[in-house]
C-alpha cells in the first residue's frame, strides 16, 4: 500500500514538473525578473529545463514498468506499438482532414481499457518507435512522448464519467472518449510548438527587455500559434473526434474481448497434492 502511495506521488510529481518544464518560456522570465536576478543564466535555461524534463521522463518510465510487466503485457504493447507506428506511416492512404492521425484511437482506447500504465507506455512508445523508424528523432521527441504518454495515462479518468452517463458499451462511451481524444490531439500540436518557441523567439534574451513581461511572452506565443498551427491543430482535433466516434464502439468491443485472455492467471487447486505456486501469466 505504501508502495502504491509512492507510485502515485511519482506520477504526480513527474507530471507536474514535466508540465512546468514544458511551459517554462512563459513563467521563467517573469519569475527571474521578480526575483531580481535578471538574465544571469538565461542562456542555459533551455538546456537545463530540457534535462529536467528528460529526468522526469526517465523516472516516470521506470516507475511505470517497475511494478512488473508480464510477458503478455510486453508482447501486447510491442504489437500495438508496431500497429500504431504503421498507422502513422499509412495515414495518408485514406482521406481524412489534415493533421489528423489515427494513432490517438489506440492510445486513448488502450489506456481506457487496459489501464493508466499501459496507456502511458503505449502512447510514449508509439511516438518513440515510429520516430526511430522514420528517422524523425529530434529534440522534440521527449515532449511528444510525454504528451502522447499522458494521453493514454489519463484516459482511465473518463471511466467515472462514462459510468455516470451509464454509457458503457454504447455510443455515449465512444463520444466521451472522442471528446477526450480530440482535446489531447489539440494539445499534442500545441506542445510541439512550445518546444519550437524558445528557438523561434530567441534564447531568452528578447523578453528580458524592460517592459516585456510574462503577458508579452504569452501574447507573442499566441500570435505565433495562431499563425502557424491553429488551423492544423483544429483539423487534427476534428479528425480525432470523428475517428474515435466512428471506430470507438467496435474497437472497444475487441479490446475488451481480449482483456480477459491477457489477464488469466493460474490458481492451483487447493485440493490434491499440489502445493501453492506463483503464477507467471497476467499480473498487469
Amino acid at each position: 500500500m505504501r508502495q502504491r502511495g509512492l507510485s502515485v506521488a511519482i506520477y504526480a510529481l513527474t507530471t507536474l514538473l514535466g508540465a512546468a518544464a514544458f511551459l517554462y518560456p512563459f513563467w521563467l522570465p517573469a519569475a527571474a525578473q521578480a526575483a531580481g536576478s535578471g538574465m544571469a543564466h538565461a542562456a542555459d535555461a533551455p538546456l537545463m529545463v530540457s534535462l529536467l524534463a528528460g529526468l522526469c521522463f526517465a523516472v516516470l518510465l521506470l516507475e511505470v514498468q517497475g511494478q512488473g510487466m508480464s510477458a503478455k503485457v510486453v508482447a501486447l504493447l510491442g504489437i500495438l506499438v508496431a500497429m500504431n507506428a504503421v498507422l502513422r506511416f499509412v495515414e495518408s492512404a485514406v482521406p481524412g482532414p489534415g493533421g489528423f492521425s489515427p494513432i490517438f484511437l489506440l492510445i486513448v482506447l488502450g489506456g481506457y481499457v487496459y489501464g493508466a500504465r499501459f496507456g502511458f507506455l503505449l502512447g510514449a512508445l508509439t511516438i518513440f518507435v515510429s520516430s526511430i523508424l522514420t528517422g524523425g528523432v529530434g529534440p522534440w521527441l521527449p515532449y511528444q512522448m510525454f504528451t502522447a504518454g499522458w494521453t493514454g495515462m489519463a484516459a482511465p479518468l473518463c471511466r467515472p464519467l462514462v459510468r455516470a452517463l451509464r454509457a458503457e458499451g454504447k455510443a455515449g462511451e465512444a463520444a466521451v472518449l472522442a471528446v477526450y481524444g480530440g482535446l489531447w490531439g489539440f494539445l499534442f500540436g500545441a506542445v510541439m510548438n512550445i518546444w519550437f518557441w524558445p528557438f523561434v523567439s530567441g534564447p531568452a534574451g528578447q523578453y528580458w527587455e524592460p517592459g516585456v513581461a510574462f503577458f508579452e511572452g504569452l501574447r507573442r506565443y499566441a500570435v505565433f500559434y495562431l499563425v502557424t498551427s491553429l488551423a492544423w491543430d483544429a483539423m487534427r482535433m476534428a479528425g480525432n473526434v470523428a475517428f474515435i466516434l466512428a471506430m470507438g464502439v467496435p474497437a472497444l468491443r475487441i479490446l475488451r474481448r481480449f482483456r480477459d485472455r491477457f489477464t488469466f492467471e493460474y490458481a492451483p487447486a487447493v485440493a490434491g497434492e499440489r502445493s501453492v505456486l506463483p503464477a507467471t501469466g497476467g499480473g498487469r
Partner: protein
Amino acid sequence: MIHFRHVSYTYPNAARPALSDISLDLPEGELILVVGPSGAGKSTLLRCINGLAPHFSGGSLAGSIRVGNLDPVQAAPQVMSHHVGFVFQDPEAQFVMDRVEDEIAFALENAAIPPEEMRVRVEETLDLLDLTPLRDRALSTLSGGERQRVAIAAVLALRPEVLVLDEPTSQLDPKSAEDVLSALVRLNTDLGLTILVAEHRLERVLPYADKILYLPADGSSPLLDEPRAVLAQIDLAPPLVRLGKALGWEPLPLTIKEGLRHSRRRAGNGRAARPRQERGAERAAGARTPFLAARDVAAAYGGTEVLHGLSLDVYPGEIVALMGRNGSGKTTLLKCMVGLVRPVRGDIRMDGRSIAGRDVADICRQVAYLPQDPNSLLFAETVAEELAITLHNHGLMARRSGQALPDDTRELLHTLGMAQHAESYPRDLSAGERQRAALAAITVTRPRALLLDEPTRGLDYAAKRQLANLLKGWRAAGMAIMVVTHDVEMAAEIADRVALMSQGEVIAQGEPAQVLGASPLFAPQVAKLFPDSGWLTVEDALQTA
C-alpha cells in the same frame, strides 16, 4: 522421460475439459508424431509438457506430470524452458528481434548466460540448423520455412532435452515444410533429442517416426504405438497407407519405396491399367467460351515483372489447379484477374468483356477471390453480419439495419455447413470454419467464378475433404473455379485441368493425369506407385483394381 498420470485440464471459462484423465509414458530419444482430429486436445497436451498449460493459459489442472525429474506445474515455464523447447504454428508470431542471430541469442541473454558461452552456443545452434548463411538477415526477409528453422534454433540454444512442436509446418508450402521436417529428423537421429511433433503432413515424417500418439476426438484414451500399429486403427492417413490398408498390403508401407514392392508385384499379375475416367468430358462436350480469359498478360509487382505474356482460360463448370513453386507468379495472376494488379500488357476478359478500367468492387461481384489468409476478410461480430456487409458494399442491401438476410443467403450458409454458426463470432471458429465463413462472405453475391489462393493451408484432413466437396458442388452448378495450390493430393482429387507455372509463364497445362502423373515433383503418391497408369487418387486405383 515424460509421464502423465491421470491428467485432466480445463481452460478458464470452458464448459468441458480439454484433456480428461490422460495417462501416458513417452520414451526418451524418440521422434513421436502426435496426430488426431482438430479439437482433440493435441495442442493442450503439448503445452502441459513445458508448463504453458496451466501457467500461461490459466485454468485448472489435475493429476501429475513429470518431465525427466521435473514437474512442469511446479517448475513453471521459466525453468522448463531449459529442458523443453517449444515451437509454435505461426512462423510470424514468435519473434522478438529483427535479426536471425539476435533472435537466437534472446533467450540466452534473458537467462543471463555468460557472453563467452553464449557466443559458442549461438554458433553451434546456427550450424545445427544450417542457418549460418542467414545469420545477419532480417527475419522479415526470410521465407516461412527459414523462419521456422530460426524458431527451432532459438529454443535449441537453451539446450533442452525435449523439443515440442505444435503443427510447425501447417502454414508452410511443401518445400519449406520438408526442410523443417528433415531438420527435425536430423536433430533426432544425430543428437538423440526427444521430439514430439503434432503434424498433419504424415507423408514426410512417417518413415522416421518411432511412435505415433493418436488422440481421439471423443476424449477416450490416447493410442501410443509403432506407426504401423496405430495407422492400422485410424483413418487419418496419407493415400499410400489408405491404399495399402484397402488392398491388405502387409507390412503396411510407410514410404513409396516400400509401397512400390507391393504395387510392382500387383502390376506384374495382369496389369489392369484402365485410364481414369475423364471428368472434364462433359465440359469438353459443351465447349463454350471461357468465362475468364487471360491473353498474353504481363504484369509487374513491386517494380519487377513477374508475369511475362501469359495466357490461360477458365471455363464455366471446371476446376483449374494452378501449381508451381513459390514466386512463380501464381498469386499475381489471380490478383490480375480481379483487378488488384493491373497488367502492363495484354488483356483479361471476363465473360467476353475486358476488365480493363473497371474497378475491383465491380469485377468482384462476378468473380469471387479468396485470399490466402481468410482472417483479413473477417471483422464483423457475426458470420451473418459479414454477409450483410458484402451485400451492402455492392449496394444489394441497405446499411446494416438489423434486417434479416435474404433467404437465398441463408441457403448459402446451409450449403457451406455454416448455418449453425450464423450468429457466431467469426474469429472464434476453427480454421476450416473461418475459411468457410470467408467463402460465404465473398460468394454471397452469387459470382460466376471463384478464385482461391492456397485454400488448404492450415486445414486438417477433415476440413480439406469438406472443401473439396464444396468445390465439386459449385462446379456442378456451373461455376468457373481456379485454385492456386501446393497440395498435390488436393489437385489430383478435384482438378479437371492443371496448369504448371514457372517464372511467370505457364509451362504445361492439360489433364491432371498427364501433367501431374509425369512430374516427379508434383506426382501424387498413387501416381508414383503406379506410374503410367493414369491413376492419381486412392479411389482411381481402387475402382480399377
